[in-house]
Protein backbone atom coordinates (compact mmCIF):
# COMPACT_ATOMS: atom_id res chain seq x y z
CA UNK A 1 0.00 0.00 0.00
CA UNK A 2 1.39 3.41 -1.06
CA UNK A 3 2.16 5.70 1.85
CA UNK A 4 1.59 9.44 1.82
CA UNK A 5 3.62 11.97 3.80
CA UNK A 6 1.40 11.51 6.87
CA UNK A 7 1.24 7.98 8.22
CA UNK A 8 -1.73 6.27 6.65
CA UNK A 9 -3.53 3.85 8.92
CA UNK A 10 -5.68 1.28 7.13
CA UNK A 11 -9.35 1.81 7.83
CA UNK A 12 -10.30 -1.81 7.40
CA UNK A 13 -8.20 -4.92 7.86
CA UNK A 14 -9.23 -7.32 5.06
CA UNK A 15 -8.27 -10.29 7.31
CA UNK A 16 -11.15 -9.24 9.59
CA UNK A 17 -13.59 -10.54 7.00
CA UNK A 18 -11.99 -13.99 6.79
CA UNK A 19 -13.12 -16.96 8.79
CA UNK A 20 -11.09 -20.03 9.74
CA UNK A 21 -11.49 -22.26 6.67
CA UNK A 22 -11.65 -26.00 7.26
CA UNK A 23 -11.30 -28.71 4.63
CA UNK A 24 -12.24 -32.19 5.82
CA UNK A 25 -11.90 -35.48 4.05
CA UNK A 26 -12.97 -38.78 5.55
CA UNK A 27 -12.19 -42.18 4.10
CA UNK A 28 -14.36 -45.04 5.38
CA UNK A 29 -11.66 -47.70 5.60
CA UNK A 30 -14.19 -50.40 6.42
CA UNK A 31 -16.26 -49.89 3.27
CA UNK A 32 -13.32 -48.50 1.28
CA UNK A 33 -15.50 -45.57 0.23
CA UNK A 34 -14.67 -41.92 0.63
CA UNK A 35 -17.34 -40.00 2.48
CA UNK A 36 -18.21 -37.22 0.06
CA UNK A 37 -20.74 -34.40 -0.04
CA UNK A 38 -24.08 -35.74 -1.30
CA UNK A 39 -26.95 -33.99 -2.98
CA UNK A 40 -30.44 -34.57 -1.62
CA UNK A 41 -32.75 -32.68 -3.91
CA UNK A 42 -31.55 -29.06 -4.07
CA UNK A 43 -29.49 -29.35 -0.90
CA UNK A 44 -25.92 -30.58 -0.71
CA UNK A 45 -24.87 -32.08 2.60
CA UNK A 46 -21.14 -31.92 3.25
CA UNK A 47 -18.87 -32.81 6.12
CA UNK A 48 -18.72 -30.46 9.09
CA UNK A 49 -16.84 -30.69 12.34
CA UNK A 50 -19.26 -29.71 15.06
CA UNK A 51 -17.69 -30.52 18.38
CA UNK A 52 -14.45 -31.36 20.14
CA UNK A 53 -14.89 -33.90 22.93
CA UNK A 54 -11.43 -34.54 24.28
CA UNK A 55 -10.19 -37.58 22.33
CA UNK A 56 -13.41 -37.70 20.35
CA UNK A 57 -14.78 -35.57 17.56
CA UNK A 58 -18.35 -35.04 16.42
CA UNK A 59 -19.03 -34.63 12.70
CA UNK A 60 -22.09 -34.02 10.62
CA UNK A 61 -21.96 -36.09 7.43
CA UNK A 62 -24.36 -37.06 4.64
CA UNK A 63 -26.76 -39.79 5.74
CA UNK A 64 -25.83 -43.45 5.21
CA UNK A 65 -22.11 -42.83 4.78
CA UNK A 66 -20.96 -45.06 7.63
CA UNK A 67 -22.08 -47.05 10.66
CA UNK A 68 -20.95 -47.52 14.27
CA UNK A 69 -17.86 -49.72 14.43
CA UNK A 70 -16.51 -48.54 11.09
CA UNK A 71 -12.91 -47.38 10.91
CA UNK A 72 -12.21 -44.08 9.22
CA UNK A 73 -9.21 -42.09 8.12
CA UNK A 74 -9.65 -38.36 8.68
CA UNK A 75 -7.66 -35.55 7.15
CA UNK A 76 -8.37 -31.98 8.25
CA UNK A 77 -6.73 -28.84 7.02
CA UNK A 78 -7.57 -25.55 8.72
CA UNK A 79 -6.46 -22.11 7.55
CA UNK A 80 -6.64 -19.15 9.92
CA UNK A 81 -7.49 -15.58 8.80
CA UNK A 82 -3.75 -14.88 8.76
CA UNK A 83 -3.42 -17.69 6.16
CA UNK A 84 -1.52 -19.92 8.60
CA UNK A 85 -2.31 -23.61 7.83
CA UNK A 86 -2.73 -26.40 10.35
CA UNK A 87 -3.05 -30.03 9.28
CA UNK A 88 -4.30 -32.94 11.30
CA UNK A 89 -4.57 -36.59 10.30
CA UNK A 90 -5.98 -39.40 12.37
CA UNK A 91 -7.39 -42.88 12.23
CA UNK A 92 -10.58 -43.19 14.22
CA UNK A 93 -13.48 -45.49 14.98
CA UNK A 94 -17.12 -44.47 14.68
CA UNK A 95 -18.51 -45.03 18.17
CA UNK A 96 -21.94 -43.42 17.89
CA UNK A 97 -24.31 -42.46 15.16
CA UNK A 98 -27.44 -40.34 15.42
CA UNK A 99 -30.02 -39.56 12.81
CA UNK A 100 -31.28 -36.04 13.47
CA UNK A 101 -33.12 -36.05 10.14
CA UNK A 102 -32.75 -33.84 7.06
CA UNK A 103 -30.54 -36.41 5.27
CA UNK A 104 -27.75 -35.92 7.77
CA UNK A 105 -26.11 -38.19 10.29
CA UNK A 106 -24.16 -37.09 13.33
CA UNK A 107 -21.24 -39.35 14.15
CA UNK A 108 -18.96 -39.42 17.12
CA UNK A 109 -15.50 -40.80 16.37
CA UNK A 110 -12.87 -41.90 18.85
CA UNK A 111 -9.33 -40.97 17.83
CA UNK A 112 -6.99 -43.95 17.54
CA UNK A 113 -3.69 -42.97 15.98
CA UNK A 114 -2.66 -39.35 15.51
CA UNK A 115 0.12 -36.91 16.15
CA UNK A 116 -0.58 -35.23 19.48
CA UNK A 117 1.20 -32.01 18.59
CA UNK A 118 -0.81 -31.64 15.38
CA UNK A 119 -4.02 -32.29 17.28
CA UNK A 120 -3.14 -29.72 19.92
CA UNK A 121 -2.29 -27.18 17.20
CA UNK A 122 -5.58 -27.86 15.46
CA UNK A 123 -7.58 -27.74 18.67
CA UNK A 124 -5.94 -24.57 19.88
CA UNK A 125 -6.63 -22.78 16.58
CA UNK A 126 -10.27 -22.82 17.65
CA UNK A 127 -9.88 -22.61 21.42
CA UNK A 128 -7.57 -19.61 21.19
CA UNK A 129 -9.96 -17.93 18.76
CA UNK A 130 -12.82 -18.53 21.21
CA UNK A 131 -10.70 -17.01 23.95
CA UNK A 132 -9.97 -13.94 21.79
CA UNK A 133 -13.67 -13.54 21.09
CA UNK A 134 -14.57 -13.68 24.78
CA UNK A 135 -11.90 -11.12 25.62
CA UNK A 136 -13.13 -8.87 22.83
CA UNK A 137 -16.72 -9.11 24.05
CA UNK A 138 -15.64 -8.37 27.62
CA UNK A 139 -13.66 -5.36 26.42
CA UNK A 140 -16.42 -3.99 24.21
CA UNK A 141 -19.05 -4.34 26.92
CA UNK A 142 -16.80 -3.41 29.82
CA UNK A 143 -17.49 -6.62 31.70
Amino acid at each position, binding site marked *: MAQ*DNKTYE*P*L*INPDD*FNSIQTTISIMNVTTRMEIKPKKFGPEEIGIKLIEFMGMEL*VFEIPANSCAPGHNVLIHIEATGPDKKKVQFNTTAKVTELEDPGDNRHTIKVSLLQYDEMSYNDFNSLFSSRQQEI*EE*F*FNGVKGR
Partner: protein
Amino acid sequence: MANLDPKKMAQLFSAYIGVRKIVIADESSSSRAGLAKTMIDMGAKASLITMASSYSVAESEIARVKPHVVICDYDLGKAMGLTLLQMQRKSQADTKNSLFVLVTGNTSQSAVAQAAEEDVDTFIIKPYTVESIRRSIMQAAILKVYPNDYQKTVDEGKKLLFEAKPDEAIALFDKAMTLHPKPSLACFYKGQAELMKQMMDNAQGDYMEGLAFNKIHYKCMTGLYDLFMQKQMYSEAYDIVKKLSRYFPANPQRLASVMRLAIMTKSYEDIEGFYRNFMDIEARTEELSRYVTAALVVCGKYYFQNDLPSRALELMNKAAITAAGRTKVLREIIITLLSFKQQKQAQDFLNRFPAETRKGADFLSMELVVLDGLVSVSKTIENGRRLLQQDLHDPAVYTVLIRRSNEAKLFDAAEQLLQTAVQKWPQQAKEFQDAASEGLRKSGGK
Protein backbone atom coordinates in the same frame (compact mmCIF):
# COMPACT_ATOMS: atom_id res chain seq x y z
CA MET B 1 -19.37 -12.98 39.57
CA ALA B 2 -15.69 -13.84 39.75
CA ASN B 3 -16.30 -14.90 43.34
CA LEU B 4 -19.03 -17.42 42.52
CA ASP B 5 -17.76 -20.97 42.61
CA PRO B 6 -18.52 -23.16 39.57
CA LYS B 7 -21.04 -25.33 41.46
CA LYS B 8 -22.95 -22.28 42.66
CA MET B 9 -22.90 -20.82 39.16
CA ALA B 10 -24.24 -24.06 37.72
CA GLN B 11 -27.04 -24.11 40.31
CA LEU B 12 -28.03 -20.52 39.65
CA PHE B 13 -27.98 -21.09 35.93
CA SER B 14 -30.04 -24.27 36.20
CA ALA B 15 -32.64 -22.34 38.22
CA TYR B 16 -32.67 -19.66 35.53
CA ILE B 17 -32.79 -21.87 32.44
CA GLY B 18 -35.22 -24.45 33.86
CA VAL B 19 -38.17 -22.09 33.40
CA ARG B 20 -37.06 -20.30 30.24
CA LYS B 21 -38.39 -20.79 26.73
CA ILE B 22 -35.64 -21.40 24.20
CA VAL B 23 -35.53 -21.23 20.40
CA ILE B 24 -32.59 -22.90 18.66
CA ALA B 25 -32.16 -21.77 15.04
CA ASP B 26 -29.62 -23.60 12.87
CA GLU B 27 -29.86 -25.06 9.38
CA SER B 28 -27.97 -28.16 10.52
CA SER B 29 -30.14 -30.68 12.35
CA SER B 30 -26.99 -32.11 13.96
CA SER B 31 -26.15 -28.72 15.46
CA ARG B 32 -29.71 -28.17 16.67
CA ALA B 33 -29.80 -31.58 18.33
CA GLY B 34 -26.36 -31.10 19.92
CA LEU B 35 -27.20 -27.67 21.28
CA ALA B 36 -30.55 -28.84 22.62
CA LYS B 37 -28.86 -31.74 24.41
CA THR B 38 -26.31 -29.40 25.96
CA MET B 39 -29.00 -26.99 27.16
CA ILE B 40 -31.00 -29.87 28.68
CA ASP B 41 -27.86 -31.11 30.43
CA MET B 42 -27.54 -27.60 31.87
CA GLY B 43 -31.07 -27.66 33.25
CA ALA B 44 -33.35 -26.57 30.40
CA LYS B 45 -36.70 -28.34 29.93
CA ALA B 46 -37.04 -30.22 26.65
CA SER B 47 -40.68 -29.15 26.44
CA LEU B 48 -39.62 -25.51 26.47
CA ILE B 49 -37.16 -25.89 23.57
CA THR B 50 -38.30 -25.07 20.05
CA MET B 51 -36.18 -25.87 17.00
CA ALA B 52 -36.03 -23.78 13.85
CA SER B 53 -34.39 -25.11 10.70
CA SER B 54 -34.39 -21.85 8.75
CA TYR B 55 -34.63 -18.09 9.15
CA SER B 56 -38.29 -17.97 8.21
CA VAL B 57 -39.17 -20.75 10.67
CA ALA B 58 -37.17 -18.96 13.37
CA GLU B 59 -39.04 -15.71 12.67
CA SER B 60 -42.44 -17.32 13.08
CA GLU B 61 -41.39 -19.35 16.12
CA ILE B 62 -39.96 -16.31 17.89
CA ALA B 63 -43.19 -14.43 17.26
CA ARG B 64 -45.23 -17.39 18.50
CA VAL B 65 -43.15 -18.62 21.43
CA LYS B 66 -41.67 -15.29 22.62
CA PRO B 67 -38.53 -17.03 23.87
CA HIS B 68 -36.31 -15.77 26.68
CA VAL B 69 -33.31 -17.44 25.07
CA VAL B 70 -32.43 -17.57 21.37
CA ILE B 71 -29.46 -19.61 20.21
CA CYS B 72 -28.77 -19.25 16.53
CA ASP B 73 -26.18 -19.43 13.79
CA TYR B 74 -24.80 -16.19 12.32
CA ASP B 75 -25.59 -17.43 8.80
CA LEU B 76 -29.11 -18.79 8.29
CA GLY B 77 -29.25 -19.48 4.58
CA LYS B 78 -29.35 -16.16 2.78
CA ALA B 79 -30.40 -14.30 5.92
CA MET B 80 -28.37 -13.21 8.94
CA GLY B 81 -29.25 -14.79 12.27
CA LEU B 82 -28.33 -11.53 13.95
CA THR B 83 -31.50 -9.88 12.66
CA LEU B 84 -33.49 -12.25 14.87
CA LEU B 85 -32.13 -10.32 17.85
CA GLN B 86 -34.40 -7.35 17.14
CA MET B 87 -37.33 -9.72 16.76
CA GLN B 88 -36.59 -11.26 20.13
CA ARG B 89 -36.30 -7.85 21.76
CA LYS B 90 -39.68 -6.83 20.37
CA SER B 91 -41.35 -10.08 21.38
CA GLN B 92 -39.82 -10.42 24.83
CA ALA B 93 -40.59 -7.51 27.16
CA ASP B 94 -38.36 -8.94 29.87
CA THR B 95 -35.04 -8.13 28.16
CA LYS B 96 -33.10 -8.16 31.43
CA ASN B 97 -33.74 -11.89 31.71
CA SER B 98 -33.37 -12.76 28.05
CA LEU B 99 -30.31 -14.03 26.21
CA PHE B 100 -29.25 -14.02 22.58
CA VAL B 101 -26.42 -16.40 21.76
CA LEU B 102 -24.66 -16.92 18.44
CA VAL B 103 -23.17 -20.39 17.81
CA THR B 104 -21.53 -20.34 14.41
CA GLY B 105 -18.79 -21.52 12.10
CA ASN B 106 -18.27 -17.89 11.03
CA THR B 107 -15.19 -16.99 13.05
CA SER B 108 -14.40 -13.72 11.24
CA GLN B 109 -13.62 -10.67 13.34
CA SER B 110 -16.16 -8.70 11.33
CA ALA B 111 -18.94 -11.09 12.43
CA VAL B 112 -17.74 -11.03 16.03
CA ALA B 113 -17.52 -7.23 16.11
CA GLN B 114 -20.93 -6.85 14.55
CA ALA B 115 -22.41 -9.17 17.17
CA ALA B 116 -20.75 -7.23 19.99
CA GLU B 117 -21.97 -3.95 18.55
CA GLU B 118 -25.53 -5.27 18.41
CA ASP B 119 -25.16 -6.29 22.06
CA VAL B 120 -25.43 -10.05 21.51
CA ASP B 121 -24.82 -11.75 24.85
CA THR B 122 -22.21 -14.23 23.73
CA PHE B 123 -20.57 -15.64 20.59
CA ILE B 124 -19.46 -19.27 20.39
CA ILE B 125 -17.59 -20.69 17.42
CA LYS B 126 -17.95 -24.13 15.88
CA PRO B 127 -16.43 -26.57 16.39
CA TYR B 128 -17.03 -26.00 20.08
CA THR B 129 -16.42 -27.99 23.20
CA VAL B 130 -19.33 -28.58 25.52
CA GLU B 131 -17.26 -26.87 28.20
CA SER B 132 -16.92 -23.69 26.14
CA ILE B 133 -20.66 -23.56 25.47
CA ARG B 134 -21.49 -24.15 29.12
CA ARG B 135 -19.00 -21.56 30.33
CA SER B 136 -19.96 -18.94 27.77
CA ILE B 137 -23.71 -19.19 28.14
CA MET B 138 -23.57 -19.51 31.92
CA GLN B 139 -21.35 -16.47 32.30
CA ALA B 140 -23.53 -14.38 30.03
CA ALA B 141 -26.67 -15.40 31.90
CA ILE B 142 -25.24 -14.95 35.38
CA LEU B 143 -23.90 -11.49 34.50
CA LYS B 144 -27.31 -10.45 33.31
CA VAL B 145 -29.61 -12.19 35.70
CA TYR B 146 -27.50 -12.06 38.87
CA PRO B 147 -25.53 -8.84 38.45
CA ASN B 148 -22.57 -8.15 40.69
CA ASP B 149 -22.32 -5.06 42.93
CA TYR B 150 -20.66 -3.02 40.18
CA GLN B 151 -23.39 -3.76 37.67
CA LYS B 152 -26.14 -3.20 40.27
CA THR B 153 -24.70 0.20 41.17
CA VAL B 154 -24.44 1.19 37.50
CA ASP B 155 -28.03 0.04 36.92
CA GLU B 156 -29.26 2.11 39.87
CA GLY B 157 -27.40 5.08 38.47
CA LYS B 158 -29.00 4.53 35.07
CA LYS B 159 -32.44 4.58 36.70
CA LEU B 160 -31.64 7.96 38.21
CA LEU B 161 -30.47 9.20 34.82
CA PHE B 162 -33.79 8.20 33.26
CA GLU B 163 -35.50 10.05 36.09
CA ALA B 164 -33.43 13.13 35.11
CA LYS B 165 -31.47 13.20 38.40
CA PRO B 166 -27.93 13.56 37.03
CA ASP B 167 -26.19 14.68 40.24
CA GLU B 168 -27.47 11.69 42.20
CA ALA B 169 -26.63 9.44 39.26
CA ILE B 170 -23.06 10.77 39.14
CA ALA B 171 -22.60 9.96 42.83
CA LEU B 172 -23.60 6.37 42.12
CA PHE B 173 -21.34 6.09 39.08
CA ASP B 174 -18.45 7.42 41.16
CA LYS B 175 -19.19 4.70 43.70
CA ALA B 176 -19.39 2.09 40.92
CA MET B 177 -15.94 3.10 39.73
CA THR B 178 -14.47 1.83 42.98
CA LEU B 179 -16.08 -1.58 42.47
CA HIS B 180 -14.38 -2.65 39.24
CA PRO B 181 -10.75 -2.62 38.09
CA LYS B 182 -11.77 -1.28 34.64
CA PRO B 183 -15.02 0.64 35.17
CA SER B 184 -15.46 1.90 31.58
CA LEU B 185 -19.22 1.39 31.67
CA ALA B 186 -19.54 3.56 34.78
CA CYS B 187 -17.38 6.20 33.07
CA PHE B 188 -19.69 6.12 30.06
CA TYR B 189 -22.83 6.64 32.07
CA LYS B 190 -21.16 9.32 34.16
CA GLY B 191 -20.40 11.04 30.87
CA GLN B 192 -24.07 10.73 29.91
CA ALA B 193 -25.03 12.35 33.23
CA GLU B 194 -22.59 15.22 32.61
CA LEU B 195 -24.11 15.72 29.17
CA MET B 196 -27.50 15.99 30.79
CA LYS B 197 -26.07 18.86 32.83
CA GLN B 198 -24.63 20.36 29.63
CA MET B 199 -21.11 19.85 31.01
CA MET B 200 -19.63 18.69 27.74
CA ASP B 201 -15.98 19.00 28.75
CA ASN B 202 -16.62 16.84 31.80
CA ALA B 203 -18.42 14.30 29.63
CA GLN B 204 -15.48 14.23 27.25
CA GLY B 205 -13.15 13.57 30.17
CA ASP B 206 -15.34 10.72 31.39
CA TYR B 207 -15.47 9.00 28.02
CA MET B 208 -11.73 9.34 27.63
CA GLU B 209 -11.19 7.96 31.10
CA GLY B 210 -13.36 5.00 30.13
CA LEU B 211 -11.23 4.44 27.05
CA ALA B 212 -8.06 4.69 29.12
CA PHE B 213 -9.34 1.72 31.14
CA ASN B 214 -10.44 -0.12 28.04
CA LYS B 215 -9.56 1.17 24.59
CA ILE B 216 -12.27 -0.80 22.77
CA HIS B 217 -15.19 0.08 25.02
CA TYR B 218 -17.91 0.55 22.44
CA LYS B 219 -20.18 2.91 24.36
CA CYS B 220 -17.31 5.22 25.35
CA MET B 221 -16.08 5.35 21.76
CA THR B 222 -19.49 6.12 20.30
CA GLY B 223 -20.23 8.57 23.14
CA LEU B 224 -17.02 10.43 22.38
CA TYR B 225 -17.76 10.44 18.65
CA ASP B 226 -21.24 11.89 19.18
CA LEU B 227 -19.81 14.51 21.53
CA PHE B 228 -17.11 15.59 19.08
CA MET B 229 -19.72 15.89 16.33
CA GLN B 230 -21.93 17.98 18.61
CA LYS B 231 -18.99 20.25 19.42
CA GLN B 232 -18.10 20.36 15.70
CA MET B 233 -14.63 19.02 16.50
CA TYR B 234 -14.51 17.21 13.19
CA SER B 235 -10.83 16.24 13.22
CA GLU B 236 -11.24 14.56 16.59
CA ALA B 237 -14.50 12.95 15.46
CA TYR B 238 -12.72 11.67 12.37
CA ASP B 239 -9.98 10.05 14.47
CA ILE B 240 -12.52 8.30 16.69
CA VAL B 241 -14.74 7.13 13.87
CA LYS B 242 -11.73 5.66 12.07
CA LYS B 243 -10.86 3.76 15.24
CA LEU B 244 -14.46 2.54 15.50
CA SER B 245 -14.31 1.35 11.91
CA ARG B 246 -11.12 -0.56 12.58
CA TYR B 247 -12.57 -2.39 15.57
CA PHE B 248 -16.07 -2.78 14.09
CA PRO B 249 -15.44 -3.14 10.37
CA ALA B 250 -18.74 -4.49 9.10
CA ASN B 251 -20.84 -1.38 9.66
CA PRO B 252 -21.48 0.35 6.30
CA GLN B 253 -23.21 3.34 7.91
CA ARG B 254 -20.10 4.00 9.90
CA LEU B 255 -18.04 3.74 6.76
CA ALA B 256 -20.28 6.44 5.32
CA SER B 257 -19.52 8.60 8.38
CA VAL B 258 -15.81 8.02 7.88
CA MET B 259 -16.03 9.02 4.23
CA ARG B 260 -18.09 12.09 5.07
CA LEU B 261 -15.65 13.20 7.76
CA ALA B 262 -12.69 12.49 5.48
CA ILE B 263 -14.22 14.97 3.05
CA MET B 264 -15.10 17.49 5.77
CA THR B 265 -11.57 17.37 7.16
CA LYS B 266 -10.14 17.40 3.61
CA SER B 267 -8.39 14.07 4.18
CA TYR B 268 -8.78 13.12 0.53
CA GLU B 269 -5.68 10.95 0.39
CA ASP B 270 -7.29 8.81 3.09
CA ILE B 271 -10.24 8.11 0.80
CA GLU B 272 -7.89 6.70 -1.80
CA GLY B 273 -6.29 4.60 0.92
CA PHE B 274 -9.69 3.37 2.07
CA TYR B 275 -10.46 2.35 -1.49
CA ARG B 276 -7.29 0.28 -1.67
CA ASN B 277 -8.23 -1.28 1.69
CA PHE B 278 -11.70 -2.01 0.44
CA MET B 279 -10.43 -3.72 -2.70
CA ASP B 280 -8.45 -6.15 -0.52
CA ILE B 281 -11.62 -7.44 1.09
CA GLU B 282 -12.73 -10.64 -0.61
CA ALA B 283 -16.34 -10.56 0.57
CA ARG B 284 -17.33 -7.00 -0.33
CA THR B 285 -20.96 -6.28 0.40
CA GLU B 286 -23.22 -4.28 -1.89
CA GLU B 287 -23.73 -1.67 0.79
CA LEU B 288 -20.01 -1.19 1.43
CA SER B 289 -19.47 -0.85 -2.33
CA ARG B 290 -22.10 1.88 -2.58
CA TYR B 291 -20.56 3.99 0.17
CA VAL B 292 -17.03 3.64 -1.14
CA THR B 293 -18.17 4.48 -4.68
CA ALA B 294 -20.03 7.58 -3.53
CA ALA B 295 -16.97 8.77 -1.61
CA LEU B 296 -14.73 8.27 -4.64
CA VAL B 297 -17.01 10.43 -6.79
CA VAL B 298 -17.07 13.21 -4.18
CA CYS B 299 -13.31 12.97 -3.90
CA GLY B 300 -13.04 13.20 -7.67
CA LYS B 301 -15.15 16.36 -7.66
CA TYR B 302 -12.80 17.88 -5.10
CA TYR B 303 -9.79 17.17 -7.31
CA PHE B 304 -11.54 18.77 -10.31
CA GLN B 305 -12.34 21.83 -8.19
CA ASN B 306 -8.67 22.04 -7.24
CA ASP B 307 -7.46 21.72 -10.80
CA LEU B 308 -6.16 18.18 -10.55
CA PRO B 309 -8.09 16.63 -13.48
CA SER B 310 -5.92 13.55 -14.00
CA ARG B 311 -6.19 12.55 -10.35
CA ALA B 312 -9.93 13.23 -10.50
CA LEU B 313 -10.34 11.05 -13.57
CA GLU B 314 -8.39 8.25 -11.90
CA LEU B 315 -10.87 8.26 -9.04
CA MET B 316 -13.88 8.45 -11.36
CA ASN B 317 -12.46 5.45 -13.15
CA LYS B 318 -12.12 3.55 -9.85
CA ALA B 319 -15.65 4.53 -8.89
CA ALA B 320 -16.96 3.19 -12.20
CA ILE B 321 -15.09 -0.09 -11.73
CA THR B 322 -16.36 -0.49 -8.16
CA ALA B 323 -19.88 0.38 -9.27
CA ALA B 324 -19.77 -2.68 -11.56
CA GLY B 325 -22.31 -1.34 -14.02
CA ARG B 326 -24.55 0.47 -11.52
CA THR B 327 -26.08 3.09 -13.78
CA LYS B 328 -26.78 5.74 -11.11
CA VAL B 329 -23.04 5.94 -10.41
CA LEU B 330 -22.15 6.27 -14.09
CA ARG B 331 -24.79 8.96 -14.37
CA GLU B 332 -23.33 10.89 -11.43
CA ILE B 333 -19.86 10.61 -12.94
CA ILE B 334 -21.03 11.87 -16.33
CA ILE B 335 -22.87 14.84 -14.84
CA THR B 336 -19.76 15.72 -12.84
CA LEU B 337 -17.49 15.46 -15.86
CA LEU B 338 -19.75 17.64 -17.98
CA SER B 339 -19.94 20.25 -15.22
CA PHE B 340 -16.15 20.46 -15.45
CA LYS B 341 -16.21 20.59 -19.26
CA GLN B 342 -14.75 17.10 -19.66
CA GLN B 343 -16.81 16.31 -22.77
CA LYS B 344 -14.70 13.52 -24.22
CA GLN B 345 -14.31 11.79 -20.86
CA ALA B 346 -18.06 11.98 -20.34
CA GLN B 347 -18.53 10.23 -23.66
CA ASP B 348 -16.05 7.52 -22.63
CA PHE B 349 -18.08 6.85 -19.50
CA LEU B 350 -21.28 6.76 -21.51
CA ASN B 351 -19.77 3.85 -23.41
CA ARG B 352 -19.32 1.99 -20.14
CA PHE B 353 -23.02 1.49 -19.63
CA PRO B 354 -23.61 -2.26 -19.88
CA ALA B 355 -25.52 -3.33 -23.00
CA GLU B 356 -28.56 -4.47 -21.05
CA THR B 357 -29.00 -1.01 -19.47
CA ARG B 358 -29.01 1.00 -22.71
CA LYS B 359 -32.78 1.13 -22.96
CA GLY B 360 -33.01 2.43 -19.39
CA ALA B 361 -33.67 5.99 -18.22
CA ASP B 362 -30.15 6.61 -16.93
CA PHE B 363 -28.46 5.74 -20.20
CA LEU B 364 -30.97 7.50 -22.46
CA SER B 365 -30.93 10.69 -20.41
CA MET B 366 -27.13 10.70 -20.23
CA GLU B 367 -26.91 10.05 -23.95
CA LEU B 368 -28.98 13.17 -24.55
CA VAL B 369 -26.86 15.19 -22.14
CA VAL B 370 -23.52 14.01 -23.56
CA LEU B 371 -24.57 14.53 -27.21
CA ASP B 372 -26.02 17.93 -26.40
CA GLY B 373 -23.54 20.39 -27.88
CA LEU B 374 -22.24 17.79 -30.34
CA VAL B 375 -25.40 17.79 -32.43
CA SER B 376 -27.56 20.68 -33.60
CA VAL B 377 -29.99 22.46 -31.27
CA SER B 378 -32.96 21.20 -33.24
CA LYS B 379 -31.66 17.63 -33.10
CA THR B 380 -31.22 17.88 -29.33
CA ILE B 381 -34.76 19.19 -28.96
CA GLU B 382 -36.10 16.42 -31.21
CA ASN B 383 -34.22 13.75 -29.21
CA GLY B 384 -35.37 15.21 -25.92
CA ARG B 385 -39.01 15.44 -26.94
CA ARG B 386 -38.92 11.83 -28.11
CA LEU B 387 -37.74 10.76 -24.66
CA LEU B 388 -40.61 12.66 -23.01
CA GLN B 389 -43.05 11.01 -25.39
CA GLN B 390 -41.62 7.65 -24.30
CA ASP B 391 -42.51 8.71 -20.77
CA LEU B 392 -38.91 9.20 -19.73
CA HIS B 393 -39.17 12.07 -17.26
CA ASP B 394 -35.69 12.77 -15.99
CA PRO B 395 -34.45 16.11 -14.55
CA ALA B 396 -31.36 16.01 -16.78
CA VAL B 397 -33.60 15.73 -19.87
CA TYR B 398 -35.71 18.67 -18.74
CA THR B 399 -32.63 20.79 -18.00
CA VAL B 400 -31.30 20.28 -21.54
CA LEU B 401 -34.70 20.82 -23.17
CA ILE B 402 -35.42 24.01 -21.19
CA ARG B 403 -32.07 25.50 -22.18
CA ARG B 404 -32.20 24.48 -25.83
CA SER B 405 -35.85 25.45 -26.27
CA ASN B 406 -35.11 28.99 -25.08
CA GLU B 407 -32.02 29.08 -27.27
CA ALA B 408 -34.17 28.10 -30.25
CA LYS B 409 -36.65 30.85 -29.25
CA LEU B 410 -39.34 28.27 -28.41
CA PHE B 411 -40.18 30.32 -25.35
CA ASP B 412 -43.66 28.93 -24.65
CA ALA B 413 -42.37 25.36 -24.82
CA ALA B 414 -39.47 26.25 -22.55
CA GLU B 415 -41.80 27.89 -20.03
CA GLN B 416 -44.09 24.84 -20.02
CA LEU B 417 -41.14 22.52 -19.51
CA LEU B 418 -39.81 24.74 -16.72
CA GLN B 419 -43.12 24.69 -14.86
CA THR B 420 -43.42 20.92 -15.19
CA ALA B 421 -39.84 20.36 -14.07
CA VAL B 422 -40.13 22.63 -11.01
CA GLN B 423 -43.36 20.90 -10.02
CA LYS B 424 -41.80 17.44 -10.33
CA TRP B 425 -38.44 18.27 -8.72
CA PRO B 426 -38.82 21.44 -6.64
CA GLN B 427 -35.43 20.92 -4.95
CA GLN B 428 -33.78 21.41 -8.35
CA ALA B 429 -35.74 24.57 -9.21
CA LYS B 430 -32.62 26.74 -9.29
CA GLU B 431 -30.90 24.41 -11.74
CA PHE B 432 -33.89 24.57 -14.11
CA GLN B 433 -34.08 28.39 -13.76
CA ASP B 434 -30.36 28.69 -14.53
CA ALA B 435 -30.80 26.53 -17.64
CA ALA B 436 -33.70 28.74 -18.76
CA SER B 437 -31.64 31.88 -18.23
CA GLU B 438 -28.67 30.45 -20.12
CA GLY B 439 -30.89 29.53 -23.04
CA LEU B 440 -32.38 33.02 -23.08
CA ARG B 441 -28.92 34.58 -23.09
CA LYS B 442 -27.86 32.48 -26.05
CA SER B 443 -31.03 33.34 -27.95
CA GLY B 444 -30.54 37.06 -27.42
CA GLY B 445 -33.60 37.25 -25.21
CA LYS B 446 -37.34 37.38 -25.85
